[in-house]
Each structure stands twice: as structure tokens, then as C-alpha cells.
């Protein structure tokens, strides 16, 4: 990925937080999505190669990406463009609010763009239709090839303004792409934009790869690879493609994740039938053993302040969720419900832990508070696991497998996301079957 610089020019910055009337209620999911009109961005005829359809259609393409993002939240209802009466350039200057009210729009997004000297200049405005007011106006300059990212950044700005939450559209998801029959499955690391676009494959499929996870502070990824048939935790720099094995362990290392500051990897090391949790500092290479128990200790995940770790252990007999301080002391079991619990992962907000629960032959994705109270199961299915948080802690992405027939027919593995309210469950379309998703931080902070 090329270095991406964009200049954020905040002009006409008229945010009227106290007076604005539109507000999106994020606690109830999609019961009452906000009607929003996303006008196509006006393409300035002064643009280079204006007659080129690629340039001419750029305004519509960008607004389509914004709309798709909004639909995926379940919180917004982008209105049909056929009903729009004002031309994009005129609406961008000064909307006739009564016209937009007529088609029930409560918010309006307008914008314009100019392609000049290999630069893409975009500005957009968000209008409160009921209050006849502009609420955001922003301008960006970037390279034309970055138009999708600009669309995601615009989506984030609008989402943030209307919901009061930080956005998550300018992000990527890394996952394991799966092809072939189950007994000879080929698995590759793949990465895509959060909306399913721009899929790239990072490994060739020569060796088994599992459980990729993003570094929350940069574009490094840690994952498990069976390179040379030795299952070990690896580090991959997505920008350079350079891979290295993490540490020098005499056996299988697995279940890796980064610490919130990105400086450590926490993982399991299996030795003589016993898996314990270790960390390795990526700068000093110092290895620390955190659990010392004859049971299986795995799936560790740090709290966002780095002070605590949640993990999975069967020390009580069966898989349950535990927390401990980051030095390995004060171990406490927090899951006590009926059934088994696995894959705990701490929310980036710190308040919740997401998990997989197995009960009565069904698999659930759920959340509980970090002391184990307030368990809520969000979705039930034949098989699903491995939740990963959106960077704003509002959504979980996970994978789901279908029941296979006698010869494995009918088996699929797909990525799904769900809001922590339990609403807005939807499949994330991938080019191949997919599993083990991990959501990146916002690319532009």
C-alpha cells in the first residue's frame, strides 16, 4: 500500500452541536433508520480528462460507496436518487431545503470534486434538512486512485457527526480465504476494505495459515503459519511483504494477538501436551510466561489499557473465560453460564468482552461485561466463532460455517457482522469462503 497523505482542510467549519436537531439513536439498531439523501458529487468540468467516463462518473461512484456504507449500518436509509430534484452542484451551494423535506430526507450530503494535475480535490457538506443548516463542511486533497478511501473518510465524518460514535468505514479486514474440499482445504491470508472491495491475497496457499490479527497501531499482522510444517506464530508487514517467525520456541506457538500499544505479541505455546500463555516484546525480544497450569490456556486478548488479559482455559474441566492482570497474577474465572465459552476478545472501549459460547449443540456469539456479568447472546447458529471488534466497539465480525452433507457438500464458511445491540446481522461478501476475520483500526486517525 502506497503512503497515503491527505490534507484535511477544514473550511467554513460551522458545527452547531447544541442546536442540531438530527441525531441517530444507535442503541436500538435498525428500527427507525434515518432518511438521508446522498447527492452524487458534482464533477467540476475544469477537471483533467473530463470527457473520460472514469472522471465523469467519479462523483456518482463516491456517493455510491458512501450510500453502501450507510446501508450497512442499519441506522440510515439512503433515499432513491430518482426523487432528487436539485442538481448536485446547485444543491452543494445552497440546498432548497423544502424540496428535500418533501422526499422525507432529514439529512443531505452534497459535494464536488476536481481532478487536476494528478490530484483529486473533494469537498463535501452535510446538511440538516429540518433545521435548514449546514452541519459539516470538509475538503480533502489526495491522489485520484484514493477515491474509495476518501468516500470512506467522508462516511466516517458523517457517521461520527450523526451518531456521536467514532466511525469505522476507513478500515480493512484481514481474513483467511478458503478454497477446495474440506479434506484438502487451501487457505490463504486475504485482506479487503471493510465494504468487501479491494481484495488482495497475501500468501500463495502453499502452507496452512490461520488466525491473522492486526496490530492496532500500524499495518503489521500476526498469524499462525505451518511453513515447513512447523506451526509457529509469524509477523507480516503488509506494506513490505516481509515475514518473520516470532521468537524461537521449540514447539507450536499459536493464538497470537498484539498488545494495545502494538509492542508485544501475546500467544500460546504448546509443550508436551500443555498450552500456556506467553508474551514476547517485539523490541527487546524478551519472552515472559504468564500462565503456569497443566490445563489448556489459550486465546489471550488484552484490555485496551493493557492492564488486563482475558483468556480461555479448561482448568475447571471445560473451556471457560478467565481474566488476569497483565503480569499473570489475580487470575479470575468470569464465565459461569451453562455451556462452554471460548475466544474471548476485549472490546476497544474496554467495557465488554465478546466470546463464542457452545451450548446444546449450538454456537453463539455473545458479549459480557469484563467481570462476567450482563451476558447477552447476540446470535445463534450451527457453527460460528472468533468475533473481532470494529475499532469503535459497535460491531463484531465473525465467521460462520454451515452443516456439511455426507461427502462434505453444502459446506460453506462466510464472514458475518452483527451490531452489539443484536440487530443488523449481515454477511460480508468475500470472493471465496472465508474465516478468522480481524478488523483493523481506522487507517486515518
Amino acid at each position: 500500500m502506497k503512503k497515503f497523505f491527505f490534507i484535511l482542510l477544514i473550511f467554513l467549519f460551522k458545527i452547531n452541536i447544541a442546536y442540531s436537531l438530527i441525531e441517530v439513536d444507535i442503541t436500538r439498531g435498525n428500527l427507525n433508520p434515518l432518511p438521508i439523501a446522498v447527492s452524487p458529487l458534482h464533477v467540476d468540468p475544469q477537471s483533467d480528462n473530463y470527457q473520460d467516463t472514469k472522471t465523469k462518473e467519479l462523483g456518482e461512484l463516491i456517493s455510491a460507496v458512501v450510500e453502501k456504507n450507510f446501508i450497512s449500518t442499519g441506522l440510515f436509509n439512503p433515499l432513491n436518487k430518482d426523487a432528487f430534484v436539485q442538481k448536485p452542484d446547485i444543491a452543494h451551494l445552497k440546498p432548497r431545503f423544502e424540496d428535500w423535506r418533501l422526499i422525507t430526507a432529514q439529512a443531505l450530503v452534497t459535494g464536488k470534486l476536481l481532478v487536476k494535475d494528478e490530484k483529486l480535490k473533494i469537498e463535501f457538506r452535510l446538511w440538516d434538512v429540518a433545521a435548514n443548516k449546514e452541519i459539516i463542511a470538509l475538503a480533502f486533497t489526495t491522489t485520484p486512485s484514493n477515491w474509495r478511501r476518501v468516500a470512506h473518510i467522508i462516511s466516517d465524518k458523517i457517521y461520527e457527526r450523526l451518531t456521536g460514535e467514532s466511525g469505522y468505514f476507513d478500515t480493512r479486514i484481514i481474513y483467511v480465504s478458503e478454497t477446495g474440499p474440506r479434506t484438502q482445504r487451501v487457505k490463504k491470508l486475504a485482506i479487503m476494505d471493510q465494504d468487501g472491495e479491494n481484495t488482495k491475497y497475501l500468501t500463495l496457499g502453499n502452507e496452512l495459515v490461520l488466525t491473522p490479527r492486526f496490530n492496532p497501531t500500524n499495518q503489521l499482522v500476526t498469524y499462525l503459519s505451518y511453513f515447513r510444517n512447523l506451526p509457529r506464530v509469524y509477523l507480516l508487514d503488509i506494506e513490505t511483504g516481509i515475514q518473520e517467525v516470532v521468537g524461537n520456541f521449540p514447539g507450536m506457538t499459536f493464538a497470537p494477538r498484539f498488545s494495545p500499544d502494538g509492542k508485544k505479541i501475546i500467544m500460546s505455546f504448546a509443550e508436551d501436551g500443555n498450552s500456556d500463555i506467553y508474551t514476547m516484546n517485539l523490541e527487546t525480544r524478551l519472552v515472559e510466561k504468564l500462565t503456569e497450569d497443566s490445563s489448556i490456556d489459550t486465546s489471550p486478548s488484552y484490555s485496551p489499557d493493557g492492564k488486563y488479559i482475558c483468556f480461555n482455559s479448561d482448568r475447571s474441566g471445560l473451556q471457560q473465560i478467565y481474566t488476569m492482570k497483565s503480569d499473570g497474577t489475580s487470575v479470575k474465572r468470569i464465565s459461569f453460564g451453562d455451556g462452554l465459552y471460548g475466544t474471548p476478545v476485549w472490546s476497544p472501549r474496554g467495557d465488554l468482552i465478546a466470546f463464542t459460547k457452545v451450548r446444546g449443540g449450538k454456537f453463539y456469539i455473545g458479549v459480557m461485561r469484563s467481570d462476567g456479568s450482563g451476558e447477552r447472546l447476540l446470535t445463534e447458529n450451527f457453527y460460528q466463532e472468533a468475533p473481532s471488534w470494529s475499532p469503535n466497539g459497535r460491531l463484531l465480525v465473525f465467521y460462520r460455517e454451515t452443516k456439511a452433507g455426507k461427502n462434505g457438500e453444502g459446506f460453506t464458511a462466510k464472514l458475518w457482522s452483527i451490531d452489539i445491540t443484536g440487530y443488523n446481522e449481515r454477511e460480508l461478501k468475500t470472493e471465496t469462503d472465508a474465516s478468522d476475520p480481524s478488523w483493523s483500526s481506522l487507517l486515518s486517525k
Partner: protein
Amino acid sequence: MKFNKKITNLLIILISTFALSACSTAKKTSIGSGDVYTGNATIEYLASGVKDRVFFATNRSTLTTASRDTLRKQASWMRKNKNLNVVLEGHGDERGTREYNLALAEKRANAARDYLLTYGISGKRISVISYGKEKPINSASTPLAWSQNRRSVTVKTK
């Protein structure tokens, strides 16, 4: 107005927590220990009468009487063939989380390894690898397939 909305949201959360805790008192999940595969369908032979694999119950890594018998035969076959080394490949079924399965399958293969060691086979001749649930032998989603997939397979290396 805003305050009211907050209270409503809180109520919704409270009500849903109530509803969930109410259904969590349902009957206890039975974790099978009697679901070890006892058939011969997937088994291969390392030598005449020497089965190449042993099977496990759901979520367990303990060896059954039949498994110990198989491993004793493997041990005597290894004693007769001094130049032979083996790798024990541990596996799980599709009904568990991926990371736990990696650990569990490693534990299963090591249970088999420990038994071979007690029958006098040098640890240098045995290596262990866990494939978790990544390499099923039977790709169906049935209890039979799952029982065939929970296994430790002894494979000859050169």
C-alpha cells in the same frame, strides 16, 4: 427529552438481560465421553495388525483401553524396526473453536507419545504436530464423522 431516552434505553437493556438470564437455566449440556469411535472404517495399518490411529471423546485427550492396546502394538513394531521414526499427528473435530482445537489436538498427540515412551520408545524417534480441526478425514457434519476426526495418527517418517 434526552434523559428520558436514556432511561428507555436502559430499560430495554435491563429487559433483554432478564429475558436472557431466564433462558440460561435450561438443561445441562452433556459433554460426551462415550462418543469415542470404535469402528475400523478410516484406519490404516503401519504393519500387519498394527493400527495407525487412536480416537478420542469430545473435548478429551485421555486414551481408551482400545487406544492403549493399539499404541502397545505400535511400540513393539517400533522396537522391531529400530531405524523407523514417527510423527504423531493430533486432530480435533469441527465442533470446537479453532484455537482450543489446536491445543487439544496437541494434547491428544502427546497423550499417545507419552504412552509410547512408557513402552520404551525413545523420545528422539517421536515428533508431534497438531493440526487442530484443519485436516478432517471425514468431511461430513455428523457425530460419526466428528468421532472419526478426533484422532491421533502415527505416521512413518524417513
